[in-house]
């Protein structure tokens, strides 16, 4: 589980005078979903394209299970499955033809079960240009994982997908992870990153500005944790009492809402206060700042 399968070390990518990626380093382990987050132009796609062997690195070291993506593309193709952000298939190629075509090049049997699973079972005879954007993306995903690669690279995989497809895609990603595959996921969707990834790196202007698990990142921010309390006698509202680490207090829909920089002592103090005033707790909610809020905080800084 701790085996490193993707290593990016001091990686640089330049286009003319423009430095797209400026010496970033990270690694992904076997069986983990690693997220690359960042605004447009942060360097996510450049990084992924160099890992996919589509572009050459201008500095540093890239390694995918012992293979240099810039040199040994033949070996690389069996190690990775890629869903590109922008790609295409011939307009006249049917869904079934695409599956047979690419599986033959990978030397595996066509995976029509995957097409069925991703809701393309009834579209086998449809040509690529007859598919909707969401169906095209699902087909691209099916083709990416059909040869069961140990590393899957997904660039904005859920862009343009409806809710049902998104849920199915997330379930498939979980399955791949459980089966030991590693997933590199570039996404703008913070809720998706928070739900799906084990660790993330936040890129900004070609540099990594934060790394860690979504939980670690949201816990270390300056953002407030929202503590919402409702009690039988509403003692907190009547007394208008202050608690440790609380920056702001509001009353909304019979809830006392405290914005705390350190929720543990805040919650302890609230519970002690209610017990001391013989007030019965009805509801208590602790909501950490979301990854999106933390992301905005980091990128704004």
């Amino acid at each position, binding site marked *: 589980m701790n085996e490193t399968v993707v290593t990016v070390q001091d990686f640089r990518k330049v*286009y003319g005078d423009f430095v797209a990626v400026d010496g970033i380093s990270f690694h992904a382990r076997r069986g983990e979903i690693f997220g690359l987050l960042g605004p447009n132009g942060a360097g996510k796609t450049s990084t992924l394209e160099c890992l*996919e*062997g*589509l*572009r*050459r690195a201008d500095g540093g070291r890239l390694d995918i299970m012992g293979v240099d993506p810039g040199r040994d*593309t*033949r070996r690389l*193709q*069996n190690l*990775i499955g*890629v869903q*590109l952000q*922008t*790609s*295409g*298939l*011939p307009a*006249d*190629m049917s869904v079934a*033809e695409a599956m*047979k*075509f*690419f599986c*033959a*090049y*990978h*030397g595996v049997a066509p995976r029509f079960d995957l097409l069925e699973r991703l809701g393309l079972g009834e579209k086998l005879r449809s040509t690529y240009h007859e598919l909707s954007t969401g169906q095209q993306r699902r087909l*691209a995903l099916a*083709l990416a994982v059909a040869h069961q690669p140990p590393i899957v690279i997904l660039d904005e995989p859920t862009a343009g997908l409806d809710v049902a497809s998104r849920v199915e895609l997330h379930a498939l990603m979980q399955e791949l992870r459980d089966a030991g595959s590693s997933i590199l996921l570039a996404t703008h969707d913070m809720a998706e990153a928070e739900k799906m990834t084990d660790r993330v790196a936040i890129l900004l202007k070609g540099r990594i500005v934060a790394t860690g698990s979504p939980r670690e990142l949201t816990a270390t921010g300056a953002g407030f944790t929202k503590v919402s309390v409702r009690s039988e006698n509403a003692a907190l509202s009547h007394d208008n009492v202050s608690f440790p680490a609380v920056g702001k207090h509001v009353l909304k829909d019979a809830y006392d809402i405290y914005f705390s920089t350190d929720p543990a002592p805040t919650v302890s103090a609230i519970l002690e206060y209610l017990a001391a005033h013989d007030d019965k707790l009805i509801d208590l909610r602790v909501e950490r700042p979301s990854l999106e809020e933390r992301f905005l905080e980091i990128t704004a800084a």
Partner: protein
Amino acid sequence: MTAFVNHFAFEFKTGLRNPTQMLMNYLFPLAFYALMGLVMTQINPDFKETLLPAMIIFAVLVSTLLGMPGPLVEAREAGIFRSFKINGVPALSILAIPALTTIFHALIVSALIALTASSLFGGAAPVDWGSFVLVALVTAFACGGLGALIGVIATGSRSTVLWSQLIFLPSMLIGGLMLPVSLLPESIRPASALLPSTHAMQAFLGLAYRQETSIDPLASFLILAVNGILAFGLAIYLFNWDSRNDARRGHSLMALLVVVPYLAGIFFLK
């Protein structure tokens, strides 16, 4: 092998079901052949002597130069080659298989022309059918290479048309298809020797029809063969998966090296 068969079958079917490719591979060459057979043979009865090779060369030029490069350029621009690359399709297959299937379509049309020209329009049959087939194959190979090379170096649909027409239009005018090279003004004949159609026509007439030619037919045959090898070699060398790729090998002007065998052809003009 399965991958090759799948790829070949897909490209071959595309040549039939894609309306533009169907037009270039079959409809346009056969319609032009019918028109020339019906009209040109009435206007100029001598045209019957060269009807078969002229129409076969025309069919090969249309399918390889006008039909083939466009889909290659579109596929590169639409990111299709990127999808192919990450799924393990070799660059060689991307160029060679469409070229092979285009040549295959051109040869089917050539066979149709060869089998019907005599009975339908009184076209002269070749004296040596073996040489006729060989010249048809080398012509398709040379033009297929040029089509692949244009597909590789063209940066968009406009430049594709420009490069294709740079060869196709002069071939129609001074390439020996409608008018024998011997009847061209002296000043234009060297330019004619720079065209694949001229050498194809000379090879057909000299080797398959045993007629007097303006260029040594064996030299023309060899020029076409060398052109084919050079064009495919350059196409593979200059091939780019992606127009945004910054790791391109060589400059696209290297493609002009393909003219070298034809420059040599000028020295074989009689």
